[in-house]
C-alpha cells in the first residue's frame, strides 16, 4: 500500500478495500517510525489528520454534506510548511515563526480541503525557502532517504524526502529557483513547477513574489496531474493569479510521442555536469527518440547569467517581503531592547538564520540608493534576455529536456560553508522561473553510488499537460519512479 500511487490509492478507497482512516494511520505510523532519522516533518497532528480522514470516509460513503467524493477524497497529503494552515502551526522553517498559528488557510490548503484530501503534516524546508539542501531549516536538516549522510535537496526537501521514504503518498512544495524540481531530482521523486500564476500564492509565505510558484511532488507524473487538478485555479486574493478556464491536467497523459520535438540545450549537456547524470539523461532522450520523438539541438546562450540574475532579483524581493517580520504583528520578538528600532533589529537578528539574513542584506544593498540601476534594473534586463532565449528555443521545439541538477545528492555540510558553490548548483532550475515557464523533474536512473538522477522537462507557457504526458509515457515504459530507497521499508 505504501508504494501505491495516488491513483491506485484512490481506486482502493473507492472500492472500499481500505478506509481513509486506515490509510492515514498507515502513513502516520510510517512518519512515527522514520521521522527521527529523516526529519522530513516539522509538525504532525494525528488528531486533525484522523478527523479529516473520518470526514472523507463519510463523504466516500455518500454521507455528510461535503458533496460528492473526488479522486483525492481521503488521500493523505503532506504540505510544505510554507503553506498557512489554520489549526496547525506554520513555521516556514524559521525561528521567526516557530510558534505561528495562522488565522487562515492558504488557497492551496482550501483547495485540498475542498477536494477532501487529508492533511498528513507539515514538511521541513529551508528557512523561508532559501536554500538548496534543507540545511538552513531552524528545525535541523532533512536527510536523504537514499543515503542519510546526504541532503535531500531543497528547499522543499521535507516534501521530497517524505514521498521518497513512503511517509506520504504525495506532497506540496514551492519553487522559486528550483525548490520543487531539485529536491525531486535528488530524492528520486517527481515534481512539477507550474507556469507562474497558475497556482495561487495566497497564504503561501512570500520569498520572491515574481518567481514563487506552488506545485506538487509525488511518485508519478500521473499523480502530479491529479494534484494539479486540485491546486490550480484562479484566486482573486493573489494579484498575479491568472484568470483562465479550469484545465484537466490529466487530459494528455496518453498522447503519442510521435513527432514530438525535444530541444536539447547544449548549455545543459556541458562540462561540469556529473558524467553519470549526463549518461542517464542521454539514455532517457534515446528512449524518447525510440518512441518517435525528434531531437533538436538548441541553445540557451544566457544560461550562465541565470544564477547571478537570480541572486539580485530574489534577494531584492525577499528583503522587501520579509520586512513584514518586525516583531509587532506576529512572529518572534526579542526579550530585551532599548527602543523601537532596537526591537526590530534584535527581533530580526534572533528570528532569522544566517542564510536568510544574508539574502535580506544583499537585497537591501542592491535596492539601495546609487545601486538600484546598476544591480536591480540591470538584472531585470538580463532576465528578459533569458526569457527571450526560451521564446526562440520554443519556436523550434515542443519540450526542452536536460538534467535537473548537475550532480546527484551531495553530502550534508559539503556546500553549506560556501554560499556561491551552493547557488551555482541550481544553474539548470533557475532559468525556468525567471522566464515564468513550467518545469518538471522525474527520476531517470541512478549514478554509480546508487543515488537518483533527475530528468528535467521544460515546456512553453501553460504546457503542463503536454509535459506531464511525455513524463507519463516514459514512466509507463520504465520503473525508475517506482524504486524505493532501502531506508523506506520499516
Amino acid at each position, binding site marked *: 500500500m505504501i508504494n501505491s500511487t495516488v491513483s491506485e490509492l484512490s481506486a482502493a478507497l473507492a472500492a472500499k478495500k481500505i478506509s481513509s482512516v486506515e490509510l492515514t494511520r498507515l502513513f502516520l505510523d510510517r512518519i512515527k517510525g522514520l521521522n527521527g532519522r529523516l526529519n522530513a516533518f516539522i509538525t504532525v497532528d494525528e488528531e486533525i489528520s484522523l478527523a479529516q480522514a473520518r470526514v472523507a470516509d463519510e463523504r466516500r460513503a455518500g454521507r455528510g454534506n461535503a458533496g460528492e467524493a473526488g479522486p483525492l477524497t481521503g488521500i493523505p497529503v503532506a504540505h510544505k510548511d510554507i503553506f498557512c494552515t489554520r489549526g496547525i502551526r506554520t513555521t516556514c522553517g524559521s525561528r521567526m515563526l516557530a510558534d505561528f498559528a495562522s488565522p487562515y488557510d492558504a488557497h492551496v490548503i482550501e483547495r485540498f480541503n475542498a477536494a477532501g484530501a487529508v492533511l498528513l503534516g507539515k514538511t521541513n524546508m529551508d528557512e523561508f525557502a532559501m536554500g538548496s539542501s534543507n540545511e538552513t531549516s531552524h528545525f535541523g536538516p532533512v536527510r536523504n532517504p537514499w543515503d542519510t549522510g546526504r541532503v535531500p535537496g531543497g528547499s522543499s526537501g521535507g516534501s521530497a524526502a517524505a514521498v521518497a521514504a513512503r511517509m506520504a503518498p504525495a506532497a506540496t512544495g514551492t519553487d522559486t529557483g528550483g525548490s520543487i524540481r531539485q529536491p525531486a531530482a535528488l530524492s528520486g521523486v517527481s515534481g512539477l513547477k507550474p507556469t507562474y500564476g497558475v497556482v495561487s500564492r495566497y497564504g503561501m509565505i512570500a520569498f520572491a513574489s515574481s518567481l514563487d510558484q506552488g506545485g506538487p511532488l509525488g511518485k508519478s507524473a500521473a499523480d502530479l496531474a491529479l494534484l494539479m487538478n486540485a491546486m490550480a485555479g484562479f484566486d482573486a486574493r493573489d494579484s498575479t493569479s491568472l484568470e483562465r478556464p479550469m484545465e484537466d491536467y490529466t487530459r494528455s497523459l496518453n498522447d503519442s510521442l510521435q513527432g514530438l520535438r525535444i530541444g536539447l540545450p547544449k548549455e545543459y549537456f556541458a562540462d561540469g555536469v556529473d558524467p553519470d547524470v549526463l549518461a542517464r539523461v542521454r539514455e532517457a532522450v534515446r528512449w524518447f527518440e525510440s518512441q518517435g520523438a525528434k531531437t533538436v539541438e538548441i541553445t540557451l546562450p544566457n544560461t550562465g547569467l541565470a544564477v547571478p540574475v537570480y541572486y539580485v532579483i530574489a534577494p531584492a524581493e525577499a528583503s522587501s517581503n520579509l520586512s513584514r517580520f518586525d516583531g509587532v*504583528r506576529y512572529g518572534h520578538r526579542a526579550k530585551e531592547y532599548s*527602543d523601537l528600532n532596537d526591537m526590530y533589529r534584535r527581533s*530580526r537578528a534572533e528570528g532569522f538564520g*544566517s542564510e536568510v539574513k544574508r539574502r535580506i542584506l*544583499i537585497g537591501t544593498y542592491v535596492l*539601495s540608493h546609487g545601486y538600484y540601476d546598476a*544591480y536591480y534594473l540591470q538584472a531585470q534586463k538580463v532576465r528578459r534576455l533569458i526569457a527571450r532565449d526560451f521564446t526562440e528555443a520554443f519556436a523550434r521545439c515542443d519540450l526542452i529536456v536536460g538534467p535537473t541538477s548537475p550532480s546527484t545528492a551531495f553530502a550534508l555540510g559539503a556546500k553549506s560553508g560556501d554560499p556561491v558553490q551552493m547557488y551555482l548548483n541550481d544553474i539548470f532550475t533557475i532559468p525556468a522561473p525567471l522566464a515564468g515557464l513550467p518545469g518538471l523533474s522525474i527520476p531517470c536512473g541512478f549514478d554509480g553510488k546508487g543515488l537518483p538522477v533527475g530528468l528535467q522537462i521544460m515546456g512553453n507557457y501553460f504546457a503542463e499537460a503536454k509535459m506531464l504526458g511525455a513524463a507519463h509515457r516514459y514512466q509507463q515504459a520504465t520503473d525508475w519512479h517506482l524504486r524505493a530507497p532501502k531506508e523506506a521499508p520499516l
Partner: protein
Amino acid sequence: MSLTPDQLQRIALLARIAVSPGEAQGVTDRLNQVLGLIDQLQAVDTRGIEPMSHALDAQLAVQQRLRPDTVTEPDRRAAYQAVAPAVEGGLYLVPKVIE
C-alpha cells in the same frame, strides 16, 4: 564592488538586522563572495532592453487586475491579534517612540 564591515553596518541598519561587531567581518566576507557572483552582470550589454518586472510579460499583456472599491473582508481583528507578541485593548503594543 566589495563591501567593508563599516558599509555592511550601514546596510544592516537599513535592513533592521543587528550585526554584532564580532560577526561583522565574517558576514562581510560572505556577502562579498555573493557580490562577486552578481558583478558578472555588469559586463552584459543590455542597451535597448526593457527591464522584465513580471514573470509573464514576455508572453501576456499583463494588466493589474482592479476590483470595485467596496468592503469584501469581514472584521477579524481578534483572530489576527491573537498571534501578536503584545496587544492591549485592540492595539499592538510597541516601545514608546515619542517622548
